[in-house]
């Protein structure tokens, strides 16, 4: 057990902190910047540093660095509110899915643009009738010659309106149990037959969308992995979605601002700050353990649960600290409202509790 950082890691963190401060100065600060801070210019700058895909394998154009390096950079950028949204999903999830399960042709075709910070991706996962029960999804892809023809609807698709590609989880077979028959397809968002309707969220933003598919043709060559057996692939990418630092520090910049305002002489406030600082520090350790691959298998669901519940407490603290100001439209009230999403996206807390109980504790279904 050793919690120290190497000099190289310390230097990387210091550099990332400078880059983050500079980005915030030039492009502005964004709360929840991995989902709301859309800035392709900044993505290209990061790509120029080799920081996008820094922990991807070298053979796929990545930096070949340990995952903890990516985590250090991400922690500094998101904690400061630097706008990493345009490449975030692609770098975190789609690239790893493609280099793990994709064909060499897919890897050549799609990975370079992600690494260059030039491609925005979204994931077509949830549907109106398939939220927590993802395996019940109904969007169909039917084989027709060299193509799949896709019909159906996705919802809560973050970045749906600005993405170049959608990574679509769809059904290629209705035979057998629900989780069988699920496949993953890469689909350009300019394909004829796609219609995107942004949804205004309760915090006033519109990053997530409904995406409709009406006889959309996708080359069969865009199938990632095994046809009809992709549910495990999908679960694997959810591990990337759940165990990361982005799920702990979304509103950290807001928290830092609130700390400046907080009445530090009030014993109740002091107790609350102590509790928040405690969970923040412990959440970081849980995330670092995930990044090092030293967490128990499947533990990312538990890590996400711990960290996002903390983020909601942070939002409560921020709102109370700003008091009257939190009743008015602005960053504080937006953060107060937005916090409700932390424990929904990527798996609701209650679903994660089921997963943790069954997969880690081994409690019966």
């Amino acid at each position, binding site marked *: *057990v*050793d*919690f*120290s*950082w190497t000099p190289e*890691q310390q230097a990387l963190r210091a550099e990332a902190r400078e880059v983050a401060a500079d980005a915030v100065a030039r492009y502005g600060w964004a709360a929840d910047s991995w989902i709301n801070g859309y800035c392709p210019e900044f993505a290209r700058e990061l790509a120029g540093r080799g920081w996008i895909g820094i922990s991807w394998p070298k053979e796929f154009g990545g930096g070949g660095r340990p995952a*903890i390096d990516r985590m250090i950079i991400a922690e500094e950028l998101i904690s400061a509110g630097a706008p990493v949204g345009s490449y975030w999903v692609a770098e975190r999830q789609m690239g790893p899915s493609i280099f793990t399960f994709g064909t060499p042709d897919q890897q050549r075709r799609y990975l370079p643009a992600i690494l260059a910070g030039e491609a925005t991706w979204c994931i077509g996962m949830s549907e109106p009738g398939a939220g927590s029960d993802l395996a019940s999804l109904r969007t169909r892809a039917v084989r027709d010659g060299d193509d799949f023809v896709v019909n159906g609807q996705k919802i809560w698709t973050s970045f749906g309106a600005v993405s170049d590609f959608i990574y679509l989880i769809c059904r290629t077979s209705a035979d057998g149990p629900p989780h069988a028959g699920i496949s993953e397809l890469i689909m350009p968002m300019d394909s004829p037959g796609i219609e995107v309707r942004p949804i205004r969220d309760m915090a006033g933003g519109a990053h997530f969308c409904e995406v409709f598919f009406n006889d959309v043709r996708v080359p069969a060559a865009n199938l990632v992995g095994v046809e009809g057996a992709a549910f495990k692939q999908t679960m694997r990418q959810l591990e990337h979605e759940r165990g990361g630092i982005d799920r702990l520090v979304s509103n950290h910049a807001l928290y830092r601002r609130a700390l400046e305002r907080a009445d*530090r*002489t009030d*014993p109740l406030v*002091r*107790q609350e*700050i*102590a*509790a928040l*600082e*405690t*969970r923040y*520090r*412990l959440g970081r*350790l*849980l995330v*670092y*353990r995930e990044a*090092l691959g*030293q967490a128990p298998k499947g*533990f990312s669901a*538990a890590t996400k*649960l*711990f960290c996002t519940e903390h983020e909601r407490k942070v939002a409560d603290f921020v709102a109370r600290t700003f008091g009257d100001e939190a009743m008015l439209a602005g960053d504080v009230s937006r953060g107060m409202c937005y916090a409700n999403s932390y424990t929904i996206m990527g798996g609701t807390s*209650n679903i*994660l*509790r*089921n997963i*943790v*109980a*069954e997969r*880690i*504790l*081994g*409690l*019966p*279904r």
Partner: protein
Amino acid sequence: MDFALSPEQTELQRTVRAFLAEKSDEAAVRRGMDTDAGYDPAVWQQMAGQLGLHGLAIAEEHGGAGFGVQEQAIVFEEMGRAVFCGPYFATVALAAPALALSDAAAEYLPDIAAGALLATVSLDAATAVQSGEDWLLSGELNHVLDGHVAELILVPAGDALFAVAGDAAGLKRELLATVDQTRKQARLTLDAVPARRIGGAAVLDRVLDIAVVLLAAEQVGGASAVLEQTVSYAKVREQFGRPIGSFQAIKHTWSEMLLEVESARAAAQYAAWAADAAPEEFPVAAALAKAHCSEAYSRVATESIQLHGGIGFTWEHRTHLYYKRAKSSELLFGAPAAYRERLVTRLGFTAT
């Protein structure tokens, strides 16, 4: 950054766990609870001699093995799992670190490492009066861990730390009826008791930080054991024709308890590492670990009783051993709120 125990640490953990499973099973713990001394001298000697547990973190020059707080914490985690009954915490987590920072290290630590000296530290202060070469201590010292059997009692008075012999003239020792019978406490009444000045009392700040981190490790061990035992029970106990562990209410509670345990382990391990390797972070980490691990253990132990139902409320079932250890150790050396206050202060949030 590495969360894995070293092969040496894993071996230590395995050895201590196996030893305690044999020598400190539930029956042995209950035997200890029923005696005043609280421990089996034969087991005590094996721990010190055969396993070297007493001198693990004592410097080699003083007869120890020279390991750090990290290794010592591994032993305490196992002690916590077993709800070990005996004066090990008082001697090893309190007195040994205090002696190591005193002028009397060379004199007493070899005996502690050898298992030949039971020692403790009072956190209550006495008053000291100098009489020629000697000092005389007076006062009432409460909640002194194993103070009724300790052969050496370290007592702060003014800005100094004193050594008092357990059989000194003028010392009255009274075993208290503790709710956690696995950790004995005594009230000591001192009436002009001869004492020797062995250093400054200021070292007790660091001693207390080390002690609470080792206590946190013990709490993690206890909470882990309760988690494992309770989840196992939930898999076999049937009601309404199905295992109670299949009910979502149980799943949700115990997935939260898993997070309590895992986050507590992270807190305790980090603090133990900081004690050895990151002095600038240690005070914050120690306060954090004490507050967090205390509450985690109490929650897990409390929920365990609820899951067990009526049987969990009996004297016969072991749930209460953990519960009482959890609730008592939560309050030992100060309640969580006090440590949270210490945490914010140490983070630099001044109160004015």
